[in-house]
């Protein structure tokens, strides 16, 4: 039986610098490979709809006729399946996370949504 096996470590803890960081003044380094969020370059997109087909969560909506591309960030699981499949490399997986939403949008009323 050994006693006080952790004592050395506990004492060392008093003089060691903390293992945690003082966020937000010290920010953790981000790895180049980190899957943060999908970035879109709309100028090169040909609205083929492949990304919409490849997305496992249905987060992307592509409208060919009106030439629009939309993503629902909260549905996206950052799997990079869409950016791997895009034939024009319009989509890329960035290594930063999307920032927190700071402006609270007033929820639309039903009348506003239906345009009445």
């Amino acid at each position, binding site marked *: *039986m050994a006693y006080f096996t952790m004592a050395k470590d506990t004492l060392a803890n008093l003089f060691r610098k903390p293992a945690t960081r003082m966020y937000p003044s010290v920010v953790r380094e981000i790895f180049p490979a980190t899957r943060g969020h999908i970035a879109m370059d709309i100028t090169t997109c040909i609205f083929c709809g492949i990304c919409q087909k490849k997305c496992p969560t249905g987060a992307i909506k592509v409208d060919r006729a009106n030439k629009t591309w939309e993503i629902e960030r909260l549905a996206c699981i950052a799997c990079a399946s869409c950016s791997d499949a895009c034939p024009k490399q319009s989509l890329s997986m960035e290594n930063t996370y999307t920032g927190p939403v700071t402006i609270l949008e007033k929820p639309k009323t039903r009348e506003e949504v239906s345009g009445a």
Partner: protein
Amino acid sequence: MEKAEEKRHTIVPFGPQHPVLPEPLHFDFVLEDEKVVDVIPSIGYIHRGLEILVQKREFTEYVYVAERICGICSFIHGMGYCEAIEEIMKISVPERAKYLRLIWSELSRVHSHLLWLGLAADAFGFENLFMQAWRARELVLDIIEETTGGRVIFGACKIGGVRKDITDESLKTMVTVIDGMYKDVRTICDVFLNDSSVKERLCGIGILSREDAYSLGAVGPMLRASGVSYDTRKLGYGAFGDIDFDIVTETAGDCYARCAVRVHEIFQSFHIIKQAISKIPGGPISVKVTGAPNGEAMVRYEQPRGEVIYYVKANGTKFLTRFRARTPTFANIPAMIQALKGCDFADVANIVLTIDPCISCTER
């Protein structure tokens, strides 16, 4: 006489939300004074219907769902699903991809066991040890994030191979980090194995005999701690055929033995990863997959928590008919009940934790 006996039995509900249980699992304990005489478990709090989702997602996309069965052993769930499909479609995965899969699955074993050591320390009230274990785990998570892009959801496996390669430089850094971790993890593990107060809480508690472990179908560290030398990795799946390692076993079958098996497995995994890095061949990392699977397959792998079984049935379309995962925690529940019978009520938390329960996996 009968009345007196009835009186002595108390039923204590435990969970699904309980300070010592990180997972939603409910028990009804039948107590006689402080002794547990019977246990009735019930699960079903976080069933998410992931298996039925296989009929609504294309088989190539379901990999992402399979990975999300569990937040700790995510990689092997994804890999198991992919390999089951590969078996149906008779796809042979490139050698390099097999080695990469092996490296990632062993890394996930290391981080899972370190997580468990932390949780166990927390359960018996050793906060400092808990923090040290999780600090060490962070180093493994960093390697994982650097090589795959995710901390716990790797997203690195796909049908026909892997999605990302690890450069030779990263492999070298990995060896350096692992070499550096040996000493660090050794210090932490020595406390688990030698400290008197830890032993006080673990030795002779929740004993599961070799016969019980075998006949109740226990798997993983739970089985090996009772002296049965059985490890699915020895079947030689993937690149494991080329890797040389010995199965870690203990004989006591108590909480301490289960802890010791996991401690030794961390070092064993380090050893396996280093071996794999020294043997990894070059070449492509994936093959192109065309067509849709038709047929069925059953595969077995060794998760950090024990043997897992995947069954996949396909009908030649893009949507599979059935996917089933028999997870290690599910197999370990009968053995855990056996280990709980006769224990002190105060030891319940420890014993439940030593099976390393993962209820999210179990309920899928």
